[in-house]
């Protein structure tokens, strides 16, 4: 952010904040003041301090390690725990914050949903500042509202799982929409199948498109764990979401409704 930018100047703004162990790109095409960006940045650091499993003293870490109980957590954290439980039931166990070994040494890691949940709230903050056309990308999870330019959808490239500088495809979307991609090609085998305790590796990449990045993010991880059967699960339980799956042998399979995003 420019240090000379004071006061109430409204214009499109772009900022990259490194927080929560990743880069968050904030791209606001609407005219907003610098406060809009500052509020989003403040929110992201609050999420980091509260939910990070890399920080042993965060409330989430302390809870996971048994140092504090449910009664010591505030409403915001309780809401995320309830969300974890909702997703656990919805995905038939494929999403499970309690079966993932956490960096803090506990077996509780809600990071799989916290990221999307936090991004969606970034968007709410920007909308509260009057933004209608925006794109927030946190480590590859994208939340979008409105259009990129008047009359133009946002063009979201999907990274190719095998070729880091290439794209598997490009989706054209208008908000409100979230695009989340799950895969192991960036951080190695870090996605654990809760039913086996082992890293999953059946698919190379899963991209989910839906109205809310909170759920798109969680479903991407869940479908990745489920494998190809996850496409059936998604179609049956969440027909308002679309999926693109790339297998290790280079097959690309999509749900039919992905055609609305081409």
């Amino acid at each position, binding site marked *: 952010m420019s240090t000379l930018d004071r006061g109430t100047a409204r214009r499109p703004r*772009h900022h*990259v904040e490194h927080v929560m*162990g*990743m*880069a968050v*790109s904030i791209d606001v095409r609407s005219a907003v003041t610098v406060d809009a960006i500052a509020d989003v940045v403040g929110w992201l650091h609050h999420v980091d301090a509260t939910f990070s499993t890399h920080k042993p003293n965060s409330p989430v870490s302390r809870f996971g390690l048994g140092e504090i109980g449910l009664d010591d957590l*505030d409403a915001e954290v*309780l*809401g995320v*725990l*309830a969300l974890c*439980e*909702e997703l*656990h039931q919805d*995905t*038939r*166990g494929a999403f499970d914050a*309690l*079966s993932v*070994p956490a960096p803090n*040494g506990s077996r509780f890691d809600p990071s799989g949903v916290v990221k999307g949940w936090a991004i969606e709230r970034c968007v709410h903050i920007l909308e509260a500042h009057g933004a209608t056309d925006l*794109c927030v990308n946190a*480590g*590859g999870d994208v939340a979008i509202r409105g259009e990129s330019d008047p009359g133009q959808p*946002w*063009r*979201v*490239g*999907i*990274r*190719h799982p095998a*070729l*880091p*500088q*290439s*794209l598997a*495809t490009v989706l054209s979307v208008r908000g409100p929409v979230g695009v989340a991609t799950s895969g192991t*090609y960036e*951080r190695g085998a*870090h996605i*654990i199948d809760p*039913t*086996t*305790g*082992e*890293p999953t590796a059946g698919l190379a990449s899963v991209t989910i498109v839906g109205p809310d990045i909170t759920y798109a993010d969680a479903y991407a991880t869940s479908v990745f764990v489920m494998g*190809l*059967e996850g*496409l*059936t699960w998604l*179609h*049956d*339980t969440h027909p308002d979401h679309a999926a*693109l799956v790339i297998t290790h042998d280079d*097959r*690309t*399979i*999509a*749900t*039919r409704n992905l055609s609305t995003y081409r």
Partner: protein
Amino acid sequence: MDTPRDPRNPAGDPLLDPRLARFAERSAAHRNATQNTTRTGTTRTLGAPPPPPPPGQRASRAPAPTARTARPRRHHAAQGSRALALGLSIGSTLGLTGWMYAAQAADQASTTSTTSSDSGTATAATTAETTNDATTADTVASETAVDTQSTTDDASDTSGESTAETTTAETTTAETTTSTTGLADGTYTGDTFTNRWGDVQVEITVEGGVIVDVAALQVPDGDHKSVEINDQAVPYLESEALAAQSADIDTVSGATYTSEGYRQSLQTAIDDARAAATAS
């Protein structure tokens, strides 16, 4: 007059407490189970696979048996649902349109209590398995989907319909369930079907009333690359990688990259360009 706001639940979500209760139960079960394992405190480096679970780790998700009466040893509930999903997947992808339980299983009355000790995973399995009559795999799958759909619909509706609360309440009072499928323990063999790749026969194993294994007895040869997952999934036509520069994209969605990975990523170039465009 206003109802006093609960600071723990300012939004008044009626599903909060049952979900937190269920979460607390599962969390405690995990804590009890992991006290005896060697995985606690292990830290992993990026890219390094976690150590394999010690023997018996798979039972960790089930609550420690305390006052429960002895019952047949059962596999982890998720194994059953995963096996069932695999079986349905094998069935659907190989063109299997029906398979029958053995006659004595079909005559068994199915119980109406549906829950098990683990929430969502067994919910799906038991939803399918409480079907009393012999059903096609497709019917089973659609019933699973329908029940899961209604569960999901209720779960996402915060107006507090009683069905949703009943569902979650049932899962928190688990562990007194006896048979969840109405099937006696044993092995059941389906009919043999012929599809475009050959003959397929499926065998299921039931333990403790739960389907714990699904085996394909005859696996056809053939080209599986052309399989369609279901009527709603199609091969995606764009199979060639696109060069990012010519794609004129606004953002990149990919697997989560760390700040280090970001610096080499496509997204960095996009952000640099956009920053230059918006600089005052």
